[in-house]
Each structure stands twice: as structure tokens, then as C-alpha cells.
């Protein structure tokens, strides 16, 4: 009898083991195979193993899509495509003024460049660059999962609370340490939503909704929406390096970004007026690391992380008056009108630049910019 129970127990254990194995292989990261209803692609960022996060501002949702593009490429070739917007327009059967390139991202594993393109009627198309070839990425019958950013209040919900800020535009996405970070802007409230969402997405989202303030020279404190961000290690501590709609560069210790906390960032640089930060990446050369920032009305800025480190001591005190006009030193690179940039590898980035002759070119920077 005992033997029978033993065999039964073994069979159950075996079955469970098999079931678990089956689950992990068939639904990696909790994804299902289907055709995600992506209404817009306004922000792209890669996660682990070729998983692409697609920020859909229109439906205020982030999709995680398995690109199956997970083969390691140690030596990425330079990417260079001139007049890329015209080439894409012809492939789509339309004219260049009817499309816009919303974002670019590089798969850190395969080093392939991905582009999110939007037609003037709102239809989004995802492209992958392979050498000189621009190929569409199929977003039908793919493995995906998604997370909605807005709580939709029901008709009977009498306490529609102000804490569920409605995202109108996903301004940036980033993945670090098992978490997807999303910054969003609201079309109504002048406020910022910054969420840290564990990936794989689960039904029970542990979303950290943060209120972020930053101080202007220790005197005025304002709510402000984050435009773009990256993460970086400064003096052995991890930080969120964020740039705002009003251009200051602000640091937040990552471990302080917890749900419901009033987190005060420290403004380390103001980088000019009438300007919008577009993308930030961190590049390294030897032991030096640099923050590279593309701007709407300024050249690409390069900030040496060493200069940021120097201000470690004053994290909790008001920003000194001497920061008022300059802050951390930065260098303007001789590269203007960069619409997007993405990190290709440790020392190179891919830039989408409007040249002075009007051509929109995708090209790869060399180490000489570091």
C-alpha cells in the first residue's frame, strides 16, 4: 500500500515538474501568443533577452513584445542609412510628410536597431534595421504581455481620486534590475507620473506611484513632469538621472523611489532655455563614464559623471546659488538637430539626425565623441 502511495506521489511530483517546465518554456515572462492591439508606439526600450517594451501613449499601455532577436552580437557594425524617413515613406507607399519616427532603440543583445514609425492617420509600424535593409517587424501572432497605466474609474466610483494620474503621453521607458520604469505626462494636470513596474508583469501590479519634486536653487519647489531618464551608478550608488520638461538634470537615489513617497530630487544642472531634453544615455570609455543627452533646441550635451559625483556631499542640502546659471559642467558636441539617440554598445550610440541639407540620417557615433 505504502508503495502505491509512494508511486502516486512520485507521479504527481513528476507531473508538476513537467507542468512547470512546460509553463516556463511556452510562456516565457508570462507572455501569451496573439496580436496585441497596439494603438501607437511612442517610446521603445529593450528589456532582457530581446524583449522590447513598446510605450503606447494612445491607450496608456506598455506592451512587452518578444522580438525573438536574442542572438548575442559582441561586435556591432556601424549603422548608417541616409534619408531614412524618405526610404520608409516609400516602403509604406506614402510621402515623407505623412510619417514620423517616434523613437529608436537598440537591442542590447543582438545590437539591432528598432524604429517606431507613425503614419499621419495614427497607424504605428515597427521596423528593424539590418545592415542597409529596413524590414517591418511583425506584431501579429507574437508572444507579448501588457500593463495598463491608467485606472479607469467606473461610473459608480464616487471617490475618483487624484492619485491615479491619467497618462496622455508616455515620455520615456527604461528597464533596470527586473523593473520597468515609465514616466508619463498628463494632458490635464501639470504633474508627473513615474512608475516602477516589476517585469514579468503580474496580475497584481505593485506599481510605485511617485510624486517627484525638484527644487530650484533651494527656494522654489515645483512638481514637474519627467521628459526622459536613464539610470547610472554614481560613487557605487544607483541613481535615476532624469531630465525635465523645463530642462534641469535631476538625480534621485533609486532606492528612495518607493510607492507613495514624496521624493525630492536634486537639480545638478540647468541646460538652457526653450529647450527640451529628448533622450539620455550613459556611455563609457575606459574608466570614464559620460552622460549623453539629445535636445530639441541644443546640440548633444556630454556630461562627465565625475563632475556629477563631486556634488555627492550636497545631496540633502539646497542647491547652492552658484549652480544657478551653470550647475554641473557640460560640453556641447558639434552634433545638432538630433531627434533621437540610443546606446549601441558601451562606447557608441546610434543617432537620428536632421542634417543641414534636410536629410534625416541614422548613423553611429565613434569613440571620438567621448
Amino acid at each position: 500500500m505504502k508503495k502505491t502511495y509512494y508511486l502516486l506521489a512520485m507521479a504527481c511530483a513528476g507531473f508538476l515538474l513537467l507542468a512547470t517546465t512546460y509553463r516556463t518554456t511556452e510562456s516565457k515572462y508570462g507572455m501569451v501568443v496573439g496580436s496585441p492591439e497596439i494603438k501607437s508606439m511612442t517610446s521603445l526600450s529593450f528589456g532582457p533577452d530581446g524583449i522590447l517594451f513598446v510605450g503606447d501613449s494612445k491607450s496608456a499601455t506598455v506592451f512587452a513584445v518578444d522580438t525573438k532577436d536574442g542572438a548575442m552580437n559582441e561586435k556591432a557594425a556601424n549603422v548608417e542609412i541616409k534619408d531614412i524617413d524618405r526610404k520608409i515613406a516609400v516602403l509604406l507607399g506614402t510621402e515623407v510628410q505623412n510619417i514620423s519616427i517616434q523613437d529608436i532603440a537598440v537591442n542590447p543583445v543582438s545590437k539591432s536597431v528598432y524604429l517606431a514609425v507613425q503614419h499621419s492617420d495614427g497607424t504605428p509600424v515597427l521596423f528593424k534595421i539590418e545592415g542597409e535593409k529596413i524590414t517591418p517587424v511583425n506584431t501579429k501572432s507574437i508572444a507579448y504581455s501588457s500593463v495598463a497605466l491608467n485606472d479607469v474609474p467606473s461610473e459608480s466610483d464616487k471617490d475618483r481620486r487624484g492619485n491615479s494620474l491619467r497618462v496622455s503621453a508616455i515620455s520615456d521607458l527604461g528597464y533596470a534590475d527586473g523593473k520597468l520604469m515609465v514616466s508619463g505626462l498628463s494632458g490635464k494636470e501639470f504633474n508627473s507620473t513615474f512608475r516602477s513596474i516589476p517585469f514579468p508583469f503580474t496580475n497584481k501590479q505593485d506599481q510605485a506611484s511617485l510624486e517627484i519634486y525638484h527644487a530650484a536653487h533651494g527656494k522654489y519647489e515645483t512638481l514637474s513632469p519627467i521628459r526622459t531618464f536613464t539610470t547610472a551608478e554614481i560613487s557605487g550608488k544607483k541613481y535615476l538621472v532624469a531630465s525635465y520638461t523645463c530642462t534641469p538634470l535631476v538625480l534621485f537615489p533609486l532606492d528612495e523611489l518607493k510607492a507613495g513617497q514624496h521624493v525630492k530630487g536634486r537639480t545638478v544642472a540647468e541646460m538652457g532655455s526653450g529647450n527640451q531634453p529628448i533622450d539620455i544615455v550613459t556611455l563609457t570609455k575606459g574608466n570614464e563614464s559620460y552622460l549623453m543627452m539629445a535636445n530639441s533646441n541644443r546640440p548633444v550635451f556630454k556630461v562627465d559623471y565625475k563632475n556629477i559625483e563631486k556634488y555627492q556631499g550636497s545631496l540633502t542640502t539646497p542647491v547652492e546659488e552658484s549652480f544657478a546659471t551653470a550647475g554641473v559642467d557640460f560640453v556641447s558636441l558639434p552634433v545638432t538637430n538630433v531627434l533621437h539617440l540610443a546606446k549601441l554598445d558601451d562606447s557608441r550610440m546610434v543617432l537620428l539626425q536632421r542634417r543641414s541639407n534636410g536629410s534625416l540620417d541614422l548613423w553611429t557615433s565613434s569613440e571620438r565623441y567621448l
Partner: protein
Amino acid sequence: MTKNRLIRIRSYPAYGLILFVLMGFCGCSSSSENDQIRLRWRGKAAEGVDIPQSLTVGLPSDSVASLLKVRLVDSDPSVSILGDYSVESKTISFTPLIPFTRGLQYEVLLRNAPVGTFAVPAADPADAPELLGIFPSQDTLPENLLKIYLRFSQPMQEGKSADYVALISNNADTLKGAFLNLQPELWNEDRTVLTLWLDPGRIKRDLQPNRVLGNPLQRGVHYQLLVSSEWKNKLGASLPKTYDKSFVAGLRDSLSPVPAKWKIMVPSSGTRQSTKVEFNEPLDYSLLAESLSILDKNGRVVKGKWEIGEDEKAAHFKPLGSWQAGNYTLQVLTILEDLAGNNLNRPFDLDVTKKRAGLHSDEVIKVPFSVAD
């Protein structure tokens, strides 16, 4: 004559589905319905094209994608449009990744030899969008005005506001950089309401842009906001005219609205009269629509409809049922802002060197009122 030529354009507006250009080749003029290349419509978008197999004789069904091409006329002949082909009994359907563009002409090629062309008609002027409103409505606005809303009758093309919206001061200079060039822009979900932010870096006191350039708006200066007739809706139809709004910049507003000071016109019991709430100042057009509710004595939301009026300085609530004698509460979400971004809990920029008297963190503010017998 071997040149392809356009021989017929037929439109079936009553069906709203079919419009095509029929092609003949080799000078043929006796085409039947079966020879017609037809556009496939979804609403007003040409989402695909049906090519009769009579035009593709000898094309093996398993080689359609490699031998058949649809391309834009006057473009690089080696490039074919990306999309999906499907073979049915008498036709081959091609669905491009994005709908065909209004006003453009396309060509179908088999083994690189043309078999026909088709054109997509330009957008119908009857489908033109309108600009229904520019908010705030008032003609005197605070110099630290934060947002302007444009409300259209139809979904518009995105990412174009910097090209089509201009702010002119004193009828002379176009102000550059007054609005923040945000990409993606801040549209509502159906793409009919756009939020424009005046550069917050210039409004926030003490930030470098504010110190160097000052507010985007200067007190006492007259401005004209222009919305260009070149702006198109999603279908490609332009606004019928250039719209404008004139206003003058007034005093800076650095104070949060205080609901306790608002005036509530109390209705009579037993009636369905509208209740009017006066705010003493104009408030944010978009947030007003969702920030107000009235609760009965049991804390339940009274069903009815809010309407914003008097240049966003008042709102009217019309209940579905009758007012009962007794206590009611006006409940206001604290996210509600005035025209300068001061919400009910905190002003837009807070002077941290001063005492934070009156700073709240509540999610709602409640103002009681009573309906008399």
C-alpha cells in the same frame, strides 16, 4: 499604344466603400467589372486593394508575394510597398501596412511589368475638421498662464502643433519657444483635444530660463493665437480657415483656488433646477469637467449633468431627479487647477523659504450646502 492609361474613375458614395480607378492596358477600352482594380475602404481609409486575377494570368498562387508588386507611382521603381497579399477565387487582395494615402497614385506590377494603376481620391472638403474652441475662453489671462487647450471636431494629425500654432505679440512678432515642443504631444484619447504648455521652465520662478527670458507672456501685452488652416485631420482634410484668439496678459496668479470661498446658488427643494457654482476666477477647462460632484446626505453622488459656463468661471449642475430638502456636499478633486497651474492643494511653485501654512494633501475638498424646505 502600350502605355497604361487611366480610363475611368467611378465612385459609389452611396455605399461609401468602393471607389476605384480602372486601368486598361494595351489600349483596351472594353473593360468589364472583372478587370477592375478596386480599392477596399474601411470608413474613409483606403485600407487595401483588390486585384482581379484576370490581370495576373499565369501567376502561381504561391508566388504572389514575390512576383506581384504594388508601388507608388513616381517613386523608386525597385521598391514595393510593404503589406500582405491574400489570394481568393478571382482576386488577389493586397493590404498595405498603412492605408493608401489620399491624393496619390499607385501602380501594380507583375514580374516588374505594369498591369494597372489606381489612384486614391483626395480628401473630400466636406470631411474637413473644425476648431470648436480655444480654452481658456477669457480675453484677459494671467501672465503665468500654463496651458492652452484646442478642441477640434475630428481626430487631427499629431506631432504638428509647432508648425501650425503661432503666438503673435502686439500684432507684430511671432513668439518663438513660447510653447513647449513636446513629442509625443498631449492629445486626449480620441485625438480631438490638444494640450499646449507654455514653457514651464520660463514660468517657474528662479529657474534659469525664467531668469534669462522671463515669462513667455508679459503683463499688459496683447497676444493673438493663430491656428493654421494647413492643419489636417487624420484623413488628410485641412481646417477650412485660420482660427485666432486675441487676449491680453494680466496679473500673475500665484494662489491656489479656495472652494470654501466659492458661491453656490442653492436650488429649491422639489425642483430640478440647476445649481450654479461660481469660482470667482476662471479654472482649468479640462479638469473642471471631471473634478466636481455633488453628494447627497448619505454621501452618494447625485446623478445629473455638469456644464461649464461663463468663461470657465462657473459651472452648472442639472440633476436628473428633484432636489430634496436637507444637506448636500459639493465635492471637488484637489487636482483641479486654475489657469496658472495652481491646484487646490498647492501653488504651481512653492516658496520653501516661507511657512507652508494652508498646504494640504487631501484628495478631495468638501463644501457643504443645504436645500431648504
